[in-house]
């Protein structure tokens, strides 16, 4: 029983670190290549896919990081 409880309460530290690193790298790339990124992303027309897909991609990566971060801090929904 106690092992089961431990397994349930195990905090997703590794997942948080993994998604955190990917997210941080992506943000670092974005801020160090501002010129290229803003230029490409605002060409309009079919280039509209860039900002939309980037927003989706960041919401998955950074969203997963945020979710795991809250779990690691012990902030979870009421059961």
């Amino acid at each position: 029983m106690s092992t089961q409880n431990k397994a349930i309460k195990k905090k997703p530290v590794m997942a948080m670190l993994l998604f955190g690193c990917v997210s941080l790298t992506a943000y670092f790339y974005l801020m160090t290549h501002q010129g290229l990124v803003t230029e490409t992303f605002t060409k309009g027309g079919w280039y509209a896919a860039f900002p939309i897909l980037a927003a989706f991609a960041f919401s998955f990566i950074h969203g997963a990081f945020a979710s795991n971060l809250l779990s690691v801090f012990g902030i979870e929904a009421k059961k």
Partner: protein
Amino acid sequence: MKRTVTLIFTLMLSLLMAASAMAGGPPPKDLLKGYFTEVNEAARTVQFEKEGSETLTTFHLNQEMAVEDIKLNKKVMVTLDKHAGRPNVIGDVSIMFMDLPLSKIGYLIIIGLIGGLLSGFIGSGGAFVMTPAMMTLGAPGAIAVASNMCHKFPKAMVGAFKRYKYGQVDIKLGLVMAVTAIIGVEVGIQMQKYILNTWGNAGSNLYVSLVFVCVLVVVGLIVARDAYKLSKGGGEAKTGKLALALMKINIPPMMEFKVAKVRISFWITVPIGVLTGMLAATIAVGGFIGVPGMIYVIGASAMVASATELVVAFIMGCYGSVQWAISGLVDIRMTLLILSGSLIGVQLGALGTTYVKDHIIKIVMASVMLIVAVSRGAKVPGYLADVGLMNPLEPQVTAMLNSVSFWALIVALASAGGLITFFMIKGMIQARREEKQSVLETAHG
């Protein structure tokens, strides 16, 4: 059920395609994007290279512009002055991408965090402060609107997913609302265009502000009164009288919303959706009518209504973002920086709802709506003077009203953040205490 969902999806996709084919969306069409390559100070002319074209056009500066306003080799947006009496006169120039030092980055992340918290908790919000906040930092209006729109849909998607996991989202209601809201957006845009053409910019500003203030004050007071009554009566929400009466109207097709526990005619949901869309197109916060509409007209609880609004916000945000992105106006740096804070905030707000009672959501919603109404109300005298219905204001009065307007937004955001945090922590402490007590009781029993 499956057939209804398929039907709604098909309708929605065809609407999306029809709207993009017409390209009559909200982004301004008379903007030129490109670079200034040369300035002739004596002749007050500039050489402009339009994006995607290598030919240079000569533009004249209008009388109010200084040569120093022209920055070479930076991507700019140019609006031509149509009333100059001759062609190719520049009316307005703004640099598309401002520099982002660390202080501005920090500011965007914090605003995103609080906006997300609000969005996750009451289903909407944040947008009313994001756009002015970005403009305060120096972003041109169109870029601020586009970047805010593009951050809204992933945030709403994550929030909706979280609240779906807590069993609070009525997807069918969300889809029905979103389809009708998209129609409302189109109606709202056409109305805005009509007002702009008839009464000009000042008239349009006055119209937007009056709608803002009237809707927020009326709906805010209704929600506040309801929350007050509920808090006195122990916080147990009942379906309102209006919603109960409307549920008795039997005009087919009748729709059953299982999560919201409501069976109502489709035709009752239409005006709520359309009004949500119209308000979204007019004042950028459709949720301020969508959530109370779902509560008082359709009969959903505040918990389900605020969660379902996130689905509506996601679909409408997607629709708007595609249109703004096609116009090439999204500053992805600002979008993603705000998103970095708001993705944490929205999840925190969403889980916060599991610790509070229905009336707490209403208290937060009413407070935000009424403070935001003050913010916009402060702008009304200026706009009344612009259209000639009042004597022109003294510059000091204008400056004071502008600062009241800006600070009211900050107060709205800060007080909402404070209230949500307070109720969430209170709920968590209570939940832990109850958990401990039940463990003790089990051990003793």
